[in-house]
């Protein structure tokens, strides 16, 4: 590989990692703060993608579709939290796994009933449709750069929100003691509902942004579920910073793994996770379990 190709592969890895981060951030937030293992997380990704497809068909504008889909995703997160997840906070992980697995089945079927079985494509908005020529043989799609920028922006916004706002402090406090936060007069139920809803919406946004480059298809949520869990675990549960580092690692490992050790590429990310856990049993930035 020449330098130019390596640079582009680096870019590929980072871009893939950034998209993974957007999915994993919501998961680690829900995981770390609410203590809920949410297998249905991938379903929000799928729903986001379908909303983007459906609304851009209806409205003819991708931007407008996202503007409409975002509040819809927040609302959906809120409804799911109230109807199902809120019963799980004090329960064992096992039951969380079981219930959210049930939710996957329900969401998948609802998707089929509402949107059918076909694979759909979403057009890249015209202003972002071009490519940037990098070398004479290599070029890079503008839309992917756009996604990376958005993901970086979201990452920065999350960092600020978690570390410097009062609600961020409440959220961090709530992750160590739900009851103590309540004792201080803060409505934990509402706080948790917000966290879940935001986490779900972040994932849905990832699905929306990915819709034009990904196709939109049944079962797409499950494909990202396992990999986003891998990211969260590598980074350490509950750590946004960890999720960021973890997704960069997975993005790069996956990208270079394919090119450099193609025959082992399917195992690379799992081997990486196993190695990280053997070195640090609670992930890179996890609190010791």
């Amino acid at each position, binding site marked *: 590989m020449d330098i130019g190709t390596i640079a582009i592969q680096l870019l590929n890895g980072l871009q893939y990692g950034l998209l993974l981060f957007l999915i994993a951030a919501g998961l680690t937030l829900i995981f770390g703060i609410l203590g809920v293992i949410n297998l249905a997380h991938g379903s929000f990704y799928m729903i986001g993608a379908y909303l983007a497809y459906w609304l851009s068909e209806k409205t003819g504008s991708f931007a407008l579709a996202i503007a409409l889909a975002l509040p819809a995703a927040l609302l959906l997160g809120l409804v799911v939290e109230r109807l199902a997840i809120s019963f799980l906070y004090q329960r064992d992980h096992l039951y969380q796994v079981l219930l959210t697995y049930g939710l996957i089945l329900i969401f998948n*079927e609802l998707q089929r009933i509402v949107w059918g079985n076909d694979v759909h494509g979403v057009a890249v908005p015209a202003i972002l449709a071009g490519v940037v020529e990098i070398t004479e043989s290599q070029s890079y799609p503008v839309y992917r750069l756009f996604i990376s920028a958005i993901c970086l922006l979201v990452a920065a916004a999350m960092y600020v929100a978690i570390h410097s706002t009062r609600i961020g402090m409440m959220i961090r406090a709530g992750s160590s003691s739900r009851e103590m936060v309540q004792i201080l007069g803060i409505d934990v139920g509402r706080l948790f509902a917000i966290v879940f809803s935001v986490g779900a919406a972040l994932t849905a946004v990832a699905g929306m942004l990915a819709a034009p480059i990904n196709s939109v298809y049944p079962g797409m949520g499950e494909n990202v579920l396992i990999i986003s869990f891998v990211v969260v675990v590598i980074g350490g549960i509950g750590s946004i910073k960890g999720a960021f580092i973890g997704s960069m690692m997975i993005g790069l490992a996956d990208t270079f793994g394919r090119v450099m050790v193609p025959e082992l590429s399917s195992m690379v990310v799992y081997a990486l996770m196993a190695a990280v856990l053997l070195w640090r049993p609670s992930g890179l930035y996890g609190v010791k379990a």
Partner: protein
Amino acid sequence: MPPLPRSIAILLLIAVAGLATVPLVGGRFHVQLVTQIFVLAVFAMSLDLLVGFTGLVSFGHAAFYGLGGYSLAILTRDFGLVSMGATLPATLVVCGLVSAAIGWLSIRTSGVYFIMITLAFAQMIYYFFNDARGYGGSDGFYILTKPRLAIGDVTLLTLQDRATLYYMALVVLLLTAAFLWTLLRSPFGQVITALQVNEARTRALGFPIDRYKLVSFCIAGILAGLAGYLSAVQFGYVNPAHMGWRESGRVLMVVILGGSGTLFGPVLGAFVFVLLEDLLSGLTEHWLLLMGGFVVAVVLLLPKGIAGLLLSAAGRAAKSGRSAETHPDEQPSVHAIPRGGVDPILETVDLVRQFAGLIAVNRVSVKFSAGKVHAVIGPNGAGKTTLINMLSGELAPTGGHIRYKGRDIAGWSPDAISRLGIGRSFQVTNLYPSLSAFENCRIAAQSRLRSSMRFFRPASRLGAVADRAHRALARCGLGPRSQDAASALSHGDRRKLEIAMVLATEPELFLLDEPLAGMGAQESREILDLLRAVARDHTLILIEHDMDAVFAIADTLTVMVNGHVIATGPVDQVRADRAVQDAYLGHRDAAE
């Protein structure tokens, strides 16, 4: 594991008898379907050993199931083995070895991380077979000749026959159930159950818990391989999908749905799950919606699975069935423990412990003589608990030495230190709340066996262990309460039980972290009396805030401030020390 209520046991027995008749009265399809269920039940029970009894939630259990099938397929195709006598043991050995390797690596993590690392290893195995060209890749491959059991030239049975396979699966199911039932009542079973309830405590009692977890992981892996073997025999076909995360998830569903930690629950779960899939998939194209709804409903409405529902129904029917056990004789005989001849029995040299930037214990050198009561006092944050945690092995020192009878034990694991004869009690009472006081002590006493890796004889038959447990309870005045659950005891009694448990491990040196914390005056007096009695034949090191208690019981006193020892020596001498008065006792003495 609590014994099964009679009504449920009878129901299960009837069910087994009924199932034995299926090949005689049922159609071929039902024979096949129920065989499938048996296999799934064995698989689910093997996972329940991990999830429900050892507290290890594996999300990669299907790897061993799939491996069982692949071993058979490879042995048959590449080695031409068709004898069950060869393929079955070989398969189990393969599964055992692989689970030992994966388990050895995985048990270093816990909780969700354990879930994920088992998933990671399973996915690697999955991709190995999925990508490999030699084994059919994602299309899977066939077992063209099914195993036979033969002696010489006489074929005893061939698994080609469906009814034979059915009975074989039923027998395997029953044997697996019987084996696990026995296992859980054995000393080994007691230990894994205990470590599920309270891992830190079990380690502090002297059990090398990682070894127990590993053995449990291997047993579960072998049993899953057995299920996979049967499944492969049934259809003569193996595919990497059998070891994928969906299969791991599916069997986990079966276990939780049925009720984990009950053994019979997963079996019921297998029946319900398969029959429900069979029923629902015929109803509507959108049957997975119904399945999802069912799963959600189970979680919300049946918090302990189907088994939980049955148990609570049976519990209501026969509420008075239990607890009529007689109290064994109580003879408060003080068992003699030789006083250590070495002096000092324990010594720290320049002991240091650092936490990210903070030096909690700073070059502490103290000698503790055998047969004495030593108190360590100091304001909060002085490093007392850190010191005790290093002595008991909960924390590894950053630097320095700990010499016990001349041997440097710094950095040893808590279980190894416990087995040397150093017992400890915790600041926050740390018991097995669901077990009875006697069982709490029995586990403790069991830790003095050379090994609890005994799998068949019930732990209740270990007479010497039971005696030791009873003696310890009697000594702490808990004889009459030995059958009460630890969670039902009063605060003071729980603290006594904590001491009894340590006594049951027959330590020479006894570390106590604030034994009087949270006690009222009356309870404090009782505990103090107990400690005085214990001190007659043990060396005691205790941390305590209650100065009156300390002065009443201690022979020597060590005062720590900010990680340093500022004074150590006989109580009166230290009390008179100016520096100590200024730094700690301060106005208190002046007020007296």
